[in-house]
């Protein structure tokens, strides 16, 4: 039995939900950051599966762009995390509640 499109979409939805739950549950900034990466990957899986089933390469190009944006987001996000850690000596998001680095 071949894997259907709905299988991939269900897996993507599960991964995205786990990522959302992680962002809500975790308090460590780096852990939240990794959960955001997880959500981006879930969306990428949706793009690639649609591209494969509709025989269209556009979805894979979107994945390419999303990966670039994720790399940029990783660089800037980790810079922000380092700046927060220098000022607060903590990675707990509850400690960074004043809108000021």
């Amino acid at each position, binding site marked *: 039995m071949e894997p259907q499109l*709905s299988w991939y979409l269900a897996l993507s939805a599960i991964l995205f939900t786990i990522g959302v739950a992680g962002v809500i549950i975790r308090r460590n900034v780096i852990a939240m950051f990794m959960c955001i990466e997880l959500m981006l990957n879930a969306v990428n899986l949706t793009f690639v599966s649609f591209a494969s089933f509709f*025989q269209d390469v556009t979805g894979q190009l979107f*994945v390419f762009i999303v990966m670039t944006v994720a*790399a940029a987001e990783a660089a800037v996000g980790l810079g922000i995390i380092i700046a927060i850690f220098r000022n607060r000596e903590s*990675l707990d998001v509850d400690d960074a509640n004043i809108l000021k680095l």
Partner: protein
Amino acid sequence: MLALLFILFAALAVGCALAVVAQRNPLYSAISLIGVFISLACLYVMLAAPFIAAVQVIVYAGAIMVLVVFVIMLLNVEHEDSRRTRVGFLLPAALVLAAVLIAEVAFILVSVDKASFPSSSSSDIGSTASIGSQLFTTYLLPFEITSILLLMAIVGAMTLARRARELSPNARVIPGAQLLAANIIDPSKALDDTTAIETDTVAEAAHLLGITSPRDPSKRD
């Protein structure tokens, strides 16, 4: 056979994703996340997208996760302390919303399998050549915009992570600085006095100010 492979990699991905959320140590979360990326790359190969699979391993599991692990080790984060928050009154609302969401997703998943797909199995869909030709013709503008985005990310990350240069109250000459505000050099001047002194070298600035630099001019920071 393909279904068995799908179940294997999907189970691996979901298990590693659950470990990302459940682990208390961020380093273990990062390694579990690498597991998710690798199993997703295997799924991309099954979906006839070998280029995306390779980029997934190189960029995500390689570059981005190395960056994250670097930061985790640089900051030397401990286990996060488990504090309990009061979410009891939100639990019924969350259950209702989750039921609605599951119903929607189930409807979509049932209806998507009834759709008809193009049956022509042209083999060059996920190849590097087809992606490259599309990327440099139809989608050239997003490609260029992405390069600008990466440049902005480089500049922004360096600006954010750089430690601001601290001036001691007695500092008169900053080694390496060519343009000094007058009130930095002479604190008795008013702050709104924007007269600046422009010199090319530290020794020139020291000579202009009539002082000898306390630091070795050849040793710049």
